[in-house]
């Protein structure tokens, strides 16, 4: 009996040790989960663009297929280029016409310039005549006092002097008119700039008939083929930018303390949980639409009467940039799991 009494007293120690160990481990585990927050509310994301033609036309060539991988510069769509080629030819022909027109007009301008020069020369002639008749008049007036010449002769000389002066004036005006009448080719040369702009616009439109991949990527949601009339600015399909992959993980606001751009992260994809990927926090979201509050109905904010005793913390998207992603595994929207490690130095890896 003595032995059985002693046994239970002694055997409480292991039980207490187990409880103590469990509590210590619980503390450690809680500390670890707090310092390394993880979430499975995450998905894979990559930037996408709508592939849009910039000119109208029928698609005559489409050498890509749905889900295909394309390299930067690969031809995606070719639109019937004939109308745009014709427009370019037309604009070029207009330039040739204009150049010839400028040449022709220049010749008539030259003729006008010669005409103006000859008018200036005739002013000199009129001036010489006017000077001569002026001299004659003065000479005869001196002789008239002595009575060597008749009054009539002096009158004739005066008339001639006035007539030649008027002629000089007329020829001066004519010279001015002729020089004013000299036109130029400036307006036509200015038109040349306009036509050149039209040519480059036509060249650009012709270039727009070929849509090429702006980056390495993958085709998505391609649902048309050759023969489709493509309207400008209407998307034909989507191109996924496979150069940069991200995981957008929604973390609780309570986990975001100490998380900043550059924090290291470990990522798993549910497509293959055996593979782990390293990531780096790219940025944190600074806005989500609040569930309650913020709604204004009929000009006044709507406030709920009910209030929750237990408030579930808000989640914010954290954008994590993936390092060395597996191109076969990463798909937009794929489920992912993200573990943040703010305790690790951000400079590791790259």
């Amino acid at each position, binding site marked *: 009996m003595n032995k059985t009494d002693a046994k239970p007293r002694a055997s409480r120690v292991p039980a207490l040790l*187990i409880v103590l160990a469990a509590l210590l481990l619980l503390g450690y585990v809680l500390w670890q989960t707090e310092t390394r927050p993880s979430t499975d509310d995450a998905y894979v994301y990559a930037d996408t663009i709508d592939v849009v033609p910039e000119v109208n036309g029928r698609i005559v060539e489409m050498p890509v297929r749905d889900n295909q991988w394309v390299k930067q510069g690969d031809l995606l769509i070719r639109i019937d280029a004939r109308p745009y080629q014709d427009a370019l030819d037309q604009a070029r022909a207009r330039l040739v016409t204009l150049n010839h027109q400028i040449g022709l007009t220049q010749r008539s301008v030259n003729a006008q310039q010669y005409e103006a020069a000859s008018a200036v020369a005739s002013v000199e002639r009129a001036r010489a005549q006017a000077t001569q008749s002026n001299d004659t008049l003065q000479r005869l007036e001196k002789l008239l006092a002595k009575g060597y010449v008749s009054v009539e002769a002096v009158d004739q000389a005066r008339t001639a002097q006035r007539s030649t002066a008027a002629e000089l004036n007329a020829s001066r005006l004519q010279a001015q008119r002729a020089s004013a009448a000299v036109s130029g080719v400036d307006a036509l040369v200015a038109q040349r700039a306009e036509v050149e702009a039209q040519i480059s616009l036509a060249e650009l439109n012709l270039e727009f008939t070929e849509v090429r991949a702006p980056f390495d990527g993958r085709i998505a949601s391609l649902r048309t083929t050759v023969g489709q009339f493509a309207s400008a600015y209407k998307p034909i399909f989507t191109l996924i930018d496979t150069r940069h992959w991200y995981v957008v993980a929604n973390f609780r606001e309570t986990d975001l303390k100490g998380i900043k751009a550059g924090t290291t992260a470990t990522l798993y994809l549910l497509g293959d949980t055996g593979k782990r990927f390293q990531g780096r926090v790219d940025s944190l979201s600074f806005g989500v639409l609040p569930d309650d509050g913020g709604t204004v109905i009929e000009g006044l904010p709507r406030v709920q009467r009910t209030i929750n005793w237990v408030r579930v913390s808000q989640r914010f998207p954290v954008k994590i940039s993936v390092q060395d992603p597996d191109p076969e595994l990463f798909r937009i929207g794929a489920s992912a*799991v993200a573990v943040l490690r703010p305790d690790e130095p951000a400079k590791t890896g790259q």
Partner: protein
Amino acid sequence: MPSFDPVRLALIPVVLLLSGCSTSPSLVLFGAAFPDWLFCMVGGVVATTAIHVILGKCSLRERIAPLALSYPALTGLLAMLLWLVVFHR
């Protein structure tokens, strides 16, 4: 603490085998992803059941009395150990 030895001895090869190994915090089973703690709890319960059977065969159960306290603690301890070994990091 002689009663600890079977547990510790059983865990040593497991720890050695799995140390450094770390799995995704969510595991896919039958097309759905289950959280890691679910597997750890199942593992803890299974391991505690095994210990219960082993202790019963060796008539050592009363060594860790009261069982109402020690078994839940043991289950939690084993579950958390499993988590640390398999899923941590």
